């Protein structure tokens, strides 16, 4: 399923109150973009429009094609088929240096024999700029990333976070319209990761530049992106703002990948104009707030982990209530994660607040009733 975005929906859907100024550069359009490695298809005819000035995250498991897509936009991989357009100009045959893009590599790839200033000034030196001029420009960029006091240090003398800032400065020195980031936060420890995330977001908002950020962490994508592109096996599963990806996943893959969802399978037994009733394996019944025509069809739907309530009372089961067996209770600080065995789904995960748990602690191997609101079930 392609994630084709109609241009006029963009301001409403993706801005969240952010105006896109006129004449903003950095709109990135991928049309039927395909990549073969020998006989294997890594990217299958994807269509995507990234509006100018947006922070776009390509997210998915390993092998989904997100890095190949990024590298094709950058010019480091040859396009097998399809077009890449930045600001309506065809990029396919341009060298990376001639495109209005700049890439930040995963392990930063700073030149170990050059100090920070020379590292940042490298692309300018390759273009033949004079020393005074390129040092001046590089210094202003070092200021932007708050590294102006480190200009004479070598990369080996910097910490991971500092190296990343220099790599960022080096990428920005050529005034690109689109910044491409290849898993920039993977090499950092969790605490630093969160801090650098804030810095990236701040920088992007300050520069109003299009950022295309590849990551395998959905948490990162949700925190950073204005626009999340979930990819799987070379195709785009869903393109949306983070809130919609989490609240209204379109496919089973997205629901599983994004986490915090439980997937149920059941059969339609009756329907009316606004909802339908499904029957599971045992005597469980589910109400879905969508209209499905075909009776007897197998439907997959998901419920968020934090929208499920657990109770020890054993009454007759109403729709959207099921009996489950507690398998494990995990303490996570301000909330508790409970994994249960239930019908019609693989492991069910429920998340409840610490207070709720302490009111009536649930133990392992207890039988409890799980229930949720009709509106919290989403058809996939």
């Amino acid at each position, binding site marked *: 399923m392609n994630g084709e975005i109609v241009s006029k929906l963009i301001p409403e859907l993706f801005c969240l109150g952010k105006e896109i100024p006129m004449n903003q550069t950095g709109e990135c359009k991928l049309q039927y973009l395909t990549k073969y490695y020998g006989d294997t298809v890594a990217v299958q005819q994807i269509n995507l429009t990234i509006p100018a000035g947006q922070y776009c995250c390509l997210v998915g498991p390993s092998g989904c094609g997100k890095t190949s897509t990024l590298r094709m936009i950058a010019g480091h991989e040859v396009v097998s088929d399809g077009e890449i357009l930045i600001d309506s100009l065809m990029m396919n045959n341009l060298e990376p240096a001639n495109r209005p893009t700049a890439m930040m590599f995963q392990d930063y790839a700073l030149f170990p024999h050059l100090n920070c200033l020379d590292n940042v000034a490298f*692309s300018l030196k*390759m273009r033949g700029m004079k020393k005074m001029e390129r040092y001046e420009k590089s210094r202003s960029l070092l200021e932007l990333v708050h590294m102006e006091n480190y200009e004479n240090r070598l990369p080996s003398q910097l910490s991971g976070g500092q190296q990343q800032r220099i790599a960022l400065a080096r990428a920005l020195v050529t005034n690109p319209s689109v910044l491409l980031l290849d898993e920039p936060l993977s090499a950092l420890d969790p605490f630093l990761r969160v801090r650098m995330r804030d810095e990236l977001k701040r920088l992007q908002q300050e520069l109003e530049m299009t950022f295309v950020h590849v990551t395998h962490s959905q948490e990162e994508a949700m925190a950073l992106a204005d626009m999340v592109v979930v990819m799987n096996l070379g195709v785009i599963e869903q393109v949306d703002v983070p809130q919609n990806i989490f609240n209204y996943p379109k496919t089973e893959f997205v629901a599983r990948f994004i986490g915090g969802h439980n997937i149920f399978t059941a059969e339609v037994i009756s329907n009316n104009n606004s909802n339908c009733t499904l029957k599971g394996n045992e005597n469980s019944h589910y109400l879905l707030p969508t209209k499905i025509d075909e009776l007897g069809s197998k439907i997959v739907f998901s419920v968020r982990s934090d929208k499920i309530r657990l109770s020890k009372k054993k009454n007759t089961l109403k729709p959207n209530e099921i009996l489950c067996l507690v398998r494990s209770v995990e303490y996570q600080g301000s909330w508790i994660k409970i994994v249960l065995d239930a019908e019609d789904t693989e492991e069910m995960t429920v998340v409840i607040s610490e207070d709720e748990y302490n009111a009536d602690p649930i133990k392992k191997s207890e039988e409890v009733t799980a229930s949720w609101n009709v509106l919290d079930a989403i058809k996939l």
Partner: protein
Amino acid sequence: MVNSKINIFLQVIPLIFIFLFFFVAPLSLTLIVSFWDYSDYALIPDFTFRNYKEIFEGCIINLPDLCVTFKTYLSTLKFCFSVWLLTLLIGFTIAYFLRFHVKTMTMQIVLFLVCTIPFWTSIVIRMIAWIPLLGRNGLVNDIFINIGLIDDPIEWLLYSDFSVILSFIYLYTLFMIVPIFNSMLRIDESLLEVAYDSGASGFQTLANVIIPLCKPGIAIGSIFVITIVMGDFITIGIMGGQQIASVGKIIHVEMQYLQFPAAAANAVILLLVVLMIIYTLTRAVDIRKEL
């Protein structure tokens, strides 16, 4: 506590012994003997500067005419420089090809080992094998005459500067390939990608990224080649038809005449010259990060 200190001491003793016996002792002996006197038939333990004076006899006074010592050193340095330059160019190219153009690691190692095959033969045989190839009636001349390229055999193929340099390159290019290849292995491919992304042409990448990062390897290879060539007399002797002077030859001849103090003095001077060259090299390049 004391036990571990004795242990450490005992563990270091073999190396100290080898160092003292095979390095410090001979070197000190040479230095001491270089200050001895000698007559036609005996060595006279003494402390005299006679040997050093004779080496540099008339060297300053006779300028711009060069004395024997200066001429010999110039000749040897000439060889040293040309061999160094050519082994560097050839060695760098081969190492570059091995590292960046050969795809799999396996092939890299295989081809690398192929380069070392000549070393399975004795160095003397490898050297004199050039003689039937390059001589007046040798293979090369025969082929050229037969295909009509020339009428008379080329004289300067053998027993000339050409054959000496050729022989040196053949014998010692591997000493350049190994450290440079090692340096190149440490260059991450992502650095080349960054350079490409920044708009660097092939040549710019070479000059700005690869060569600076190979400097330690180049320095180590250069040290190998320079020290070997400066002290050599066998290769220069045989491939030069015993007609070409070299510092090593002077020492060799003096030893044959049992003039050990003179030979020792020449050896000390040679050592100082080579040390100066290496010192300059290490000032230019920091080798320590390679070790």
